[in-house]
């Protein structure tokens, strides 16, 4: 079984978020990057489990500049066999999806896995776009994935229950919490990652469908106002006139 896992980098969750270039770009100075948790903990680990059960190969792909390589090495340390980096700055979901789709069309995979979203922009778009471009079935937000011959069984949470889907391979599936459990890379894996192939592929897509106009931070938390529990009039007044919540 040949599985491709799409790996994105994301800022560590404790990073301080600032912007540059007139608030149109995320300022990466001093930011620690990690493998996007949905890609790592669920998509990659489930791919490895499927490989361990059925044999085959796990390849990872990222669209990004050379500074992606440390997080790609981590994915290799966890157990992926081979890595490809499309040498291009990731600009928007379409451009990333189109690059990956190009790579897929000249190679052959039974299964393409992505995280359900990347924790920086939370777009949840790349998986669906890849599926659309390569014209294959797609299931998003999968919490469980089993493969049986040429069929994938997927579960995903619905309000008040679970939905079970069946997809014919090759298929694209985005992974959510529950699909697998995080694996800590072991020392042998880390040392082996050194010699696993990481190939740089030239970019082929220049088109983007979106343009970032401006980023802004959520408003700072305001001061807390304490209202005497007996003074309902003031509470209502504050909620109505100041917080405009009622």
């Amino acid at each position, binding site marked *: 079984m040949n599985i491709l896992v799409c790996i994105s980098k994301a800022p560590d969750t*404790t990073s*301080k978020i600032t912007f540059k270039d007139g608030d149109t770009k995320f300022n990466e100075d001093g930011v*620690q990057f990690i493998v996007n948790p949905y890609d790592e903990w669920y998509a990659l680990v489930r791919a490895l489990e499927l490989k361990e059960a059925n044999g085959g190969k796990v390849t990872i792909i990222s669209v990004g500049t050379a500074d992606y*390589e*440390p997080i790609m*090495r*981590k994915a290799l*340390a966890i157990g992926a066999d081979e890595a490809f980096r499309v040498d291009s700055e990731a600009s928007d979901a379409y451009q990333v999806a189109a690059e990956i789709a190009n790579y897929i069309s000249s190679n052959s995979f039974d299964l393409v896995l992505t995280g359900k979203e990347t924790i920086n922009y939370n777009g949840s778009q790349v998986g669906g776009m890849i599926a659309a471009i390569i014209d294959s079935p797609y299931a998003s937000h999968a919490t469980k994935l089993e493969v049986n011959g040429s069929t994938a069984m997927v579960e995903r949470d619905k309000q008040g229950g679970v939905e079970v889907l069946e997809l014919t391979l090759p298929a694209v599936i985005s992974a959510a919490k529950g699909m697998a459990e*995080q694996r*800590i*890379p*072991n*020392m*042998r894996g*880390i*040392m082996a*990652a*050194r010699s696993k192939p990481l190939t740089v592929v030239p970019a082929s897509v220049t088109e983007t469908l979106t343009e970032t106009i401006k980023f802004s931070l959520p408003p700072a938390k305001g001061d807390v106002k304490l209202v005497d529990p007996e003074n309902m009039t003031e509470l209502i007044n504050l909620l109505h006139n100041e917080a405009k919540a009622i």
Partner: protein
Amino acid sequence: MTAIKGGEFLIRQTKPEEIFIPEEWSEEEKMIAQTCREFIAQEVFPMVDKIDSMEDPSIMPTLLKKAGELGILSISIPTEYGGMGMDFKTSMLAAEAVGGGHSFSVAISAHSGIGTLPILYYGSEEQKQKYIPKLASGEWLGCYCLTEPSAGSDANSGKTKAVLEGDQWNLNGQKMWITNGGFADVFTVFAKIDNDETLSSFIVDKGSDGLTLNPEEKKMGIKGSSTRQVFFNDVKIPKNNQLSDRENGFKIALNILNVGRIKLAAATLGASKDVVTLSVNYANERQQFGRPISKYGAIRYKLGEMAMRTYALESAVYRISQNIQDRIEGLASEGMEKGKATLKGIEEYAAECAMMKVYGSEVLDYVTDEGVQIHGGMGYSAETIVEKAYRDSRINRIFEGTNEINRMLTVDMILKKAMKGELDLMAAAKSIQDELLSIPDFGDSDGGLFEEEYKLIEGFKKAVLMVAGSAAQKLMMELSKEQEILMNIADMAIDAYVAESIALRVHKRINTMGESGQEVYKAMAELFVHDAAERVHHNAKDALMSFGEGDELRMMLMGAKRFTKTGTKNVKVLRRTIAQKLIDDNAYKI
């Protein structure tokens, strides 16, 4: 350029580009540390109270075995014995990364240090093949039985006896404070053969008849670390379980402790970083008088000081780690067997290892103490991690040789090197004598980075050489009995080494990354050196006045003042600058 020798820092100027700084860790090394930290965060931390309660004594060995599965126990074990064969510096980084795991940190470092290394470094090939792969994987767990009720710091006075009876050794005696004793499979035991003066060493397997354990000791901290008394009543072990040669045990014990000391410094560094983060988290969250307490100067002082000392420790620990590693590789490339090269490499810098043990354990004690203080009443509650950290920290000043023993060793080892002619301290001391008699040098300013700091660091070294040199001259053999003076000299040497390390590190940072954005780092180096000057002056005065007399004393006191004379520094602003970074990052991310 020749490599710096152990103790040579006192008479040699090092350039920034000659030292290793933690900013230079490779991606792979960072990943190794991350694995260790993730293991602590995910496997150990959720169990930390359960471990300390000792309700289920199987938790600790289970966790150690899990660490073994990830390869954490075998980082520095050579590949031919099933290990990863990683270099010394990486093993230090791993020791740091597991350092914040409370009782677990003690268990893992005891297992992979004193529990494994005596066999690795001194075992016969057969012993190594039998024990090391299983100790490296965690299948077997190890402990080290040296201390006895009446033989602590004076380890060679142990009474445990070994008598050869046919083809078996018969061991009798009592050991105490044996870390990992409760679950260890392999006991490295120090005992005297017949009526020998000096210890020999033996490998004893768990389950040997006559090997019994007392219940767990109740301790102030590291409550989840198994600490037992071990009794040997006619314990019979095969003759070939003797480890190394007869009467080589004391040397083994000392050499293994050298390794343990520098590893302990790394562990205290990891723990310090965690406690700084805990403390700034709390300070940012806790509101009083309508504002987070991190906005108050009294708290900022503490945060700034905690971060600065932690960073200084890190600078010194990895500087010496690189020197040790270079020495090990140098000896190995000359054909020395790797294990032997490792011991020799560490032994060369035994004084620095002792200094780092002292400094690291005292930084952690300061950091945990102020950490509790920042937490206020909550810090006194057993519900908080900082309370545990405070209690757990205390043992570090006691084990692996008390800090007092390590201070004396620091001075002793440096003076011995001088007497053996390996370090020309006498010439340096003489030139300081001459300098004292000459007109003070007001020096031309070159305006370079840390000009004042480097001048002070040179002054600290001069102060050490002046005090140590004149004390040795005056007191001769009596100096070893004047422990107060030895403490003063050791403290001055530590300040000199750490001050130089932090200044060189920040200098190298600025040389490679440029000046912008380095204010916090500069503030730490400036603050450390400025404050160290007061301490060095104080220690020099204390020492000089306890043996010096008359004009000579007056001249040396003038010298001590001159060597530690600082300019003005707004230390309040420096500490606030450092604290602000912690507060903004809400973590120790320096």
